[in-house]
C-alpha cells in the first residue's frame, strides 16, 4: 500500500440543505472523490437557516489531520461559523472568503492534489477572479 498523506477536509455551510448537499456532491465528483467534503446545510429541523451543531459535526467529519477549510454561502452563515470556531480548539480550521460553488470546487480539487490548508484556502479565494466566459 502506498503511504497516504492526510488531506485537507472541506466543510460547506449553506442556509439550504439541498444547496450544501449539491455543492458537496459536485465538488467531490470533480475532484475524484478522495477528499472528505462535509455538508452542513439548513437548520436542525431541515429548514432554511444554519445550525452550529451541524457545522460542528461536519468539521469533525472532515478533519483528517491536515486541517479543515470552511466555506459559507451567505453572510449570516459566516456568523454561525465564526461563533463556533473558537469552541473547536482541537481542530485547525480556516474560514474562506470565497464564492460558494466555485470556491468549493477549487478548494476540493486543490486538496485532492495534496496541497496544505493555506494553499487550499488560497485556491478558494482566487475563485473570485475565475471568469466563465
Amino acid at each position, binding site marked *: 500500500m502506498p503511504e497516504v498523506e492526510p488531506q485537507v477536509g472541506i466543510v460547506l455551510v449553506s442556509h439550504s440543505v439541498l444547496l450544501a448537499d449539491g455543492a458537496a456532491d*459536485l465538488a467531490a*465528483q*470533480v*475532484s*475524484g472523490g*478522495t477528499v472528505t467534503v462535509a455538508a452542513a446545510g439548513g437548520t436542525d429541523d431541515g429548514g432554511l437557516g444554519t445550525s452550529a451543531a451541524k457545522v460542528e459535526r461536519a468539521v469533525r467529519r472532515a478533519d483528517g489531520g491536515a486541517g479543515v477549510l470552511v466555506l459559507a454561502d451567505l453572510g449570516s452563515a459566516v456568523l454561525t461559523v465564526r461563533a463556533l470556531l473558537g469552541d473547536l480548539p482541537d481542530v485547525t480550521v480556516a474560514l474562506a472568503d470565497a464564492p460558494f460553488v*466555485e470556491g468549493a*470546487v*477549487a478548494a476540493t*480539487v*486543490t486538496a*485532492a*492534489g*495534496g*496541497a496544505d490548508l493555506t494553499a487550499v484556502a488560497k*485556491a478558494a479565494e*482566487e*475563485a473570485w477572479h*475565475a*471568469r*466563465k466566459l
Partner: protein
Amino acid sequence: MPASSESITLSGDLHARPAGAVAVAAGRFASAVSVSAGTRTVDAKSVLGIMGLGATSGQQVTVSADGPDAAEAVAALITILGDATRVGG
C-alpha cells in the same frame, strides 16, 4: 530547471470532471504546469482556470511544465487529457 511541453488534440470537450482530473494530477507535481488552448494559458493546478479555457473536441491543447519533474508532469497530464476527454463528463 528542465522544461517540457507537449500537445494533444482533444477527442471530447474539456468538461468539469476531466478538468478536475487534470488539476488534481498537476497539484501532485512540484513543477509549475500550464495548459494552453488557443490564445489562452492557465495554471494547470487551477480547475476553474482549466474549465474557463472552454476547450472543445478537436481543439489542440498544449501542456507545458518547468521544474524538477517537468517531463513526468507533462506526460501525466497528456495521458489524462487523452483518456478523460474520450469519456466526457
